């Protein structure tokens, strides 16, 4: 059954092998543009905001939005716009670095498990499965409980959560690619395992992992915000989107802008990553290995 479906997938993959030029769907363009905008805004935060995100202005406590402070001020009179921009920096950094770390470890593990099979596969797959026993957020909270809170710990915890998911996708994708004729051909010519993996299997099998990684980046951002919201991620006074939501909770009805904008920023970033993921899926993973 499994080998049949793998053969079927292989045929579809082989058919789509000559890379046709893909016209990007509108949603993908929107996703890419939105993400580029958010990343640019995060990088250019000091230029755009015009205020220090940590400067306390007692005269502006819970000040409503105006021309000078378009997003208003928070409970300590700090400028919400600049805090959102600087918070976005931390959030994007944590999200992207955690997924990058997870991908860097997952790709070789998935390649080895999928290509060599046998006891190596069982060892790698079963060990990674163990990480999936706990719900993601709980695993992160448990890790942070031991090491102590902070954005680096949060990033590592998120990387550990996504490692098994990405490794599993890489393994499946490697299984499909390893059964193709050009890999068999290379093997029969006596190429070393290292050479086959690095020049044939890895480049052809990586697509679905990239798709999955882009989708997970959005969820990583959400997870970082959730941890910071619980007080376990980025620590004050460094602005973080989740931390801002926690700060403004008590003044929700008096100063809703303290809550609305950071939440919108998180939602926009997650939408951008998932639209990007959808677009990449059409281009890199037409058979849906990633899902």
């Amino acid at each position, binding site marked *: 059954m499994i080998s049949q479906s793998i053969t079927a997938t292989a045929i579809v993959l082989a058919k789509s092998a000559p890379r046709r030029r893909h016209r990007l769907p509108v949603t993908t363009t929107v996703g890419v543009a939105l993400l580029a905008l958010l990343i640019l805004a995060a990088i250019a935060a000091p230029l755009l905001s015009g205020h220090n995100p940590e400067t306390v202005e007692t005269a502006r406590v819970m000040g409503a939005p105006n021309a000078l402070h378009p997003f208003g001020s928070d409970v300590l009179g700090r400028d919400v716009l600049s805090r959102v921009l600087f918070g976005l920096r931390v959030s994007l950094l944590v999200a992207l670095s955690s997924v990058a770390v997870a991908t860097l470890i997952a790709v070789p593990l998935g390649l080895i498990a999928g290509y060599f099979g046998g006891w190596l596969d069982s060892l790698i797959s079963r060990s990674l499965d*163990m990480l999936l*026993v*706990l*719900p*993601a*957020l*709980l*695993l992160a*909270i*448990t*890790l*942070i*409980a*031991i*090491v*102590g809170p902070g954005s680096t710990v949060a990033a590592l915890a998120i990387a550990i959560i996504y490692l098994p998911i990405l490794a599993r996708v890489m393994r499946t994708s490697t299984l499909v690619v390893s059964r193709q004729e050009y890999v068999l051909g290379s093997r029969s010519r006596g190429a070393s395992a290292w050479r086959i993996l690095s020049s044939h299997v890895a480049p052809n099998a990586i697509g679905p992992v990239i798709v999955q990684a882009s989708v997970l980046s*959005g969820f990583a951002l*959400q997870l970082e*915000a*959730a941890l910071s*919201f*619980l*007080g*376990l991620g980025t620590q004050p006074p460094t602005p973080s989107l*989740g931390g801002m*939501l926690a700060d403004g*909770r008590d003044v*929700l*009805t008096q100063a*809703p802008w303290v*809550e*609305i904008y*950071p*939440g919108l920023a*998180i*939602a926009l970033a*997650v*939408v951008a990553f*998932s639209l990007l993921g959808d677009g990449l899926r059409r281009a890199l993973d037409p058979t849906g290995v990633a899902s």
Partner: protein
Amino acid sequence: MNGLAFVLRRTLLTIPVLWVMSIIVFLIIRLVPGDPVRTMLGFRATAANVAEVRRQLHLDEPLLQQYLDWAGGLLHGDLGQDLVSKAPLAELLAQRLPVTFELTGLAMLLAIAVGVPLGVRAATGGRWVKRLTSGFVVAGISIPDFWLGIMLVLVFAGTLTLLPPSGYVPFGDDPMQNLSYMVLPVLTLATAEAAYILRTTRSAMESVLQRPFVTFLRAKGISRRRITYGHALKNSAPTIVTVIGIQIGVLLGGAVIVETLFALPGVGRLIVTAVNQRNYPTVQAGVLAIAATFIIVSLITDLFIGWLDPRISDGASR
């Protein structure tokens, strides 16, 4: 006969999974770099303080001995003591778990009640239905649950003052008030879930509706309605139930945030408070309780899927 063998096999399989999970929860606290006692006592603690607390928590014993003591206690229902209140953890969990179960159970029911019918409509309806439901999926998945919760409080508790913003009354004390406190947390938790279930139902239905037997049913002149609900939905059910089973794990994780947000005295809030107090035995017990719940729910969904689709239980027991 085959069915019974499947039930037995699957149920017995839960024992090693629970065992592995207990080892993981045990090891995470002890093997991850960083000293829980150091983190607990802070920077000013002397080496003697640290050693004393390590002894009290039996962290100075050999790892195997620690595990055997801890697992032995677990089997007798002894989860240890809360470091702050000194209350037995089994008792604390018995108070907290019903709240978490009520929250996640109601949220899942609501998500299924919304997600499945909309998913069916999304697979069979016209262009506008498809667009609207896709919009709901994207929004539901992207909006962080804690932000949605805050916005719901702003609208329903702040502006309209229809519902209480946070708090809890046990169901046994006053069922109506209990439910009024549950409305916003359940909505918060259920929205993303409904979006996932909608998406799964839609894709499962779309693929089933393409199968030859559906064409045959159409040719036989069976009404569209009966094909959709009587045949296609029935055949999609195993896929939908599988995803629901997995998503319960996500809900249990999400409960941690929602309970904190709405001040519900569930296990999730217990864990967060315990983490902030560096109260390890409680973190360990809370995580263990939620992970065990998840494993048992997975067992129940698998058995249910076996019943829905006898091919699965037959194949597995052969």
